[in-house]
């Protein structure tokens, strides 16, 4: 049996296990419902509620945030911006996306910006709290559809070497670089999820503990985000926005 590489432990939000939560949602009934669910959660030390991106950005700048729960489609911008701001201002904080449908493209954008999970807006309170707890405990949910989309993106570009001289569009990411940084085990897990296997089935097949699968997934998320960020830095330096 292979020894699992020790995944990075999730940063404990606060010493007592409580956390400062920032909720960003423009739709009032949903916002109020989510606010109600989160404020009832004992581990919530504080809950800041925003309806727009601007409010969210100033809240991220102004106060301590351990967990960001944000909608993507906001009246004045995309929730991805809030996730990026959170990553810069509070590197140890976690971000989660709430979405009505959790369609793959939007969720992956959020993952690349630094989100580590997503919630369906209609999820039951218990499911929401469960997902948030798992996220803070180091786990990350991943749907088969999202896994497949990631695998496809890695696979589409695996054979291509990005041309040195060609200037890629600003948001393009050489996915083979991302793929290269994923370990074989992580790729196996990603494949398994994309094929529709359960965590238990994957763990059994790979002869690893069922509980380490979410940790691997969390690492996959992190690598997608880190790579994406380093590529963003590279892109920015290439375009002369910053000097390295």
């Amino acid at each position: 049996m292979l020894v699992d590489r020790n995944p990075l432990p999730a940063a404990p939000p606060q010493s007592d296990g409580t956390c400062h939560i920032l909720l960003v949602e423009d739709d009032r009934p949903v916002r109020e419902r989510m606010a109600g669910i989160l404020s009832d959660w004992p581990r919530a030390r504080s809950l800041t509620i925003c309806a727009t991106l601007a409010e969210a950005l100033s809240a991220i700048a102004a106060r301590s945030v351990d967990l960001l729960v944000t909608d993507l489609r906001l009246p004045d911008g995309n929730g991805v911006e809030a996730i990026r701001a959170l990553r810069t201002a509070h590197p140890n904080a976690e971000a989660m996306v709430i979405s009505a449908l959790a369609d793959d493209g939007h969720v992956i954008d959020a993952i690349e910006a630094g989100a580590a999970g997503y919630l369906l807006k209609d999820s039951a309170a218990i499911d929401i709290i469960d997902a948030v707890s798992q996220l803070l405990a180091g786990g990350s949910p991943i749907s088969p559809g999202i896994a497949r989309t990631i695998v496809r993106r890695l696979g589409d570009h695996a054979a291509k070497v990005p041309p040195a001289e060609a200037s890629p569009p600003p948001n393009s990411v050489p996915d083979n670089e991302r793929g290269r940084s994923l370990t074989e085990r992580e790729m196996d897990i990603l494949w398994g999820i994309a094929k529709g296997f359960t965590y238990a089935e994957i763990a059994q097949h790979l002869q690893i503990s069922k509980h380490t699968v979410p940790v691997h997934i969390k690492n996959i998320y992190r690598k997608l985000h880190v790579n994406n960020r380093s590529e963003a830095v590279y892109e920015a330096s290439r375009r002369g926005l910053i000097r390295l």
Partner: protein
Amino acid sequence: MSVRSRLGWILLVLVNAALAAAAYVVTLPAPDHAIAIDTVLYSADDGSARQVSLPHRSGWGADGAATARYQAVFDLAAMPEARLFVFAGVVNHHPALILNGTPLTDGRRPIWSGPLTNAPVLHELPRTALVTGRNELTVATENAEMAISGLLSPLYIGEEADLLPAYKMRIFSQERLAPMAFGAHLLLSLGILVCYARRPRDPLFAWLAAMIVVSSAASVGLFAGLTPAFAGLRPYCLALLPSVGLLFIGIALAFVGASPPRWFRPLIVALAVTLMAGVAMDILPDPHTLAAFYLAAVVVSITVATIVIAWHAVRGANTEAYFLLSPFFLTAWFMVRDAGVSAGLFDGTVLLSPYMRPILLAAVLALLMHRLVATLDRLDDANETLNQRLAAREAELTALHHEERVKAAHAVRAQERERLTRDLHDGIGGHLVSIIAMAERPGSNTAPIEQAARQALDDLRLVIYSLDLGDRELPLALANFRERLIPQLRRAGVTLDWSMIGLPDVSGVTPGNALAILRILQEAVTNALRHGPATVIAIRGEVTDGKATIIVDNDGAAYAENPTGFGLINMRQRAAQLGGEIRIAPLASGTRVTVLLPIALPDVQTG
């Protein structure tokens, strides 16, 4: 005939008449400052002697004399300071010169010699042989072996400087120009032979090539003076002349696009072979008769060829025939004239037909070039037309292709829209209608509304997820369903036991049929939740009799005895459309719903 072509005709006739008459109008200059002798004492081999004036012809065709002696007398008042020379513009039989009894030359022959050529003579009169007072210069020619009459033009006696210009002029025009013409003939022949080699099926090229070969062979005889080895060939070469004449007719016919009679080609070959055999066996008439026959054959043939061309030029309005008419006519005319001159029938000293050969060939070549250019033009036109047609066709095809693609895309969109409409109508539409109905009920309970709304949203997700499915991605669709099912069952306090490892690979998965399968499973789960207090729902994939099988077990109540519910009917309908079936069987505790599907799903477009 239009005015323009009439003018062209008149011009053509005038130019040809001018060229034909040129031989009588244009004469080479005679030397100045020299003693001109145009009256001499002529003695033939029969011993008779008489005064004749120069130019004079003797021998065959004239007086029949085998040898001719011309005795010229000139007086020298004193022995001149400078050296004296004698010059004769035209002497065709290579005379021997005798001055006061001293032989000066025995008749040196130029390299370029032939029956239709003649040459000037310039010879020094040595001081030792000259006397003060009366001098006698004798010019003796041998006519016997010559087929045409001997000719002597007026004699001039003077200093070299006075005689040289006229001599050089004669040398150039008579001795040099003829080989140059022959050289040009060879060069042009090469071009024609190349044409024939590249396109042997073209009758014109074949005739021209034959003419080149045969006439070149005949021309070898002109080199008779070069080396004695050629001398023996001469009769054989000359024997080709009648065939050359006939080839002119062949060429003329080919040019105007007519074919000669069938016997014509064999005749040409037979004539040449017969004559050469005759030469070999020495059974032919004397050279004079033979030469007359050869000349007559050539002249008659070229005249016939000219008539053929003229006929087609006039009757057929054939531009090419017009173009060729002139050189053919002039060739024919100069040959007739030269023959006449040689035979002493016409006045004249210079023979012109050797110069016509390259001109004739040049005309032929010009015509071939003209044809080439015309062909290239036609080719260009054809190419242009083809390109235009091709472009038009391409544009048409592109338009058609585009139209087809638009139509196909339209069809796909329409099909997809129809499917989506149906799916949304079946799922979310029904749920929304229920929600409205429940919400309108006064004092209504919100729980069923919430449940219906959740179902509507679930169904919407089903529809959306299934949109992105590829073939053989049924496990993915099932996994998405599982993800959705987990919180649903958790809310109901039911454990989900799920395994699809045993499910075989199913092909033909489309968004439509994947959605149908998921709805079947959703219905099975819904029934399990509705009918019995299940605590565990187990869903697993298997292979049964080569069919993909999904089994949904619950540990609640058995509901198989009530198979008439709308849910079950829908499940069976959907399974049937996929080529599968639903089996419902009670378990010891609970119910088993078995969904059997073919390994390759049909492409379900309706239902």
